């Protein structure tokens, strides 16, 4: 469970109860989602305004560190809610001081929330990270690229006399060929996933082995087709690429409502 030291008290009023908001859904009745909230399984319930509801749990007024434990707690609630509802995820760590402040959010952002909920109706997100094995890719390039193969053979044959320049030249050619290969793989994968997804968004790659870090928005009815397509592609690239495939997620990367919020003192 989440220990007290995993959160840092922001103020000396840490004992005051606040409302941690996980997501916004469309529901005109009060709902309970069980004791699954952030901070040792707090009770998760809704705060309602007209036909909108914020899914919340009680929390001390603290700043939650984005530790794996805390982030997983946040995501677990959203996954649970997602089984029944289309949802707009709130960013991690959003806390309001009272139910009234939460209602003020639902009221002031009513139209934007409604529009986005309509747009996201029955849409889910999948994450796809693709890493390559540098050695296998280089081997494939040396096998398929005549110019590189010839230059490499030459350097190996005349190991003693081959110049620094020739080695530099080989290095440059391999680098260029790798970049070209990376683009080719990524484009091909995007192309193959196009007709089973609604949209995609690429984020910055993490580390030097990753060539794709993308999120795909998928219609629930296409979930199986998307799934099967990803599996087929990962088989196709089995020897070269490693696929990290996650989901379904709420549409974290496809909802962008800039809320006008200020610090509540």
């Amino acid at each position, binding site marked *: 469970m989440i220990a007290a030291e995993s959160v*840092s008290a*922001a103020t000396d009023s840490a004992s005051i109860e*606040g409302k941690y908001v996980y997501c916004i859904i469309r529901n005109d009745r009060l709902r309970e989602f069980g004791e699954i909230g952030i901070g040792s399984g707090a009770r998760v319930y809704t705060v309602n305004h007209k036909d909108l509801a914020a899914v919340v749990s009680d929390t001390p*007024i*603290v*700043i*939650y*560190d*984005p*530790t*794996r434990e805390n982030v997983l707690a946040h995501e677990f609630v959203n996954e649970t809610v997602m089984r029944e509802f289309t949802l707009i995820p709130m*960013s*991690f*760590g*959003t*806390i*309001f*001081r009272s139910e009234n*402040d939460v209602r*003020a*959010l639902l009221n*002031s*952002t009513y139209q*934007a929330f409604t*529009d*986005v909920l309509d747009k996201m109706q029955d849409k889910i997100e999948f994450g796809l*990270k693709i*890493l390559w094995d540098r050695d296998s890719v280089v081997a494939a390039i040396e096998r398929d690229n005549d110019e590189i193969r010839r230059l490499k053979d030459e350097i190996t044959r005349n190991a003693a006399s081959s110049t620094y320049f020739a080695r530099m030249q080989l290095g440059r050619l391999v680098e260029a060929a790798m970049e070209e290969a990376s683009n080719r793989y990524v484009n091909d994968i995007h192309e193959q996933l196009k007709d089973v997804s609604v949209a995609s968004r690429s984020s*910055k790659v*993490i*580390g030097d082995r*990753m060539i794709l870090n993308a999120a795909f928005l998928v219609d629930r009815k296409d979930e199986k087709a998307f799934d099967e397509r990803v599996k087929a592609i990962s088989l196709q690239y089995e020897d070269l690429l*490693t696929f*990290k495939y996650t989901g379904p997620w709420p549409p974290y990367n496809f909802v*962008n*409502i*800039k*809320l*006008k*919020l*200020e*610090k*509540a003192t």
Partner: protein
Amino acid sequence: MGLLTNILLAPFLGPVWGTRWTLEKVDRVVRDELTDDTPIKEDLMALQLQLEMGEIDDDEYVRREAEIMKRLREVREWREKFGMSTSGGPVRVAESGEPDQ
């Protein structure tokens, strides 16, 4: 100070101006560095990936995550000192209301 004073005192003031300008610039660079959490978040994502790929074990993850959380908190403290916005903590709807979409 008039133009004349500037000219008369130029040899003395010159280096002082120079120093002040440099300090301001250094100040800004240091401040940007102290208040930017982007590289820390990238480190956190890289760490998570290492765990997912089985390159590090759970203990190692927990240890390094604690270091990263410490750095994040330090950036937050600096941002508060400089009066910059921070994420997390209690919020409410701003007076001006209407959100951008």
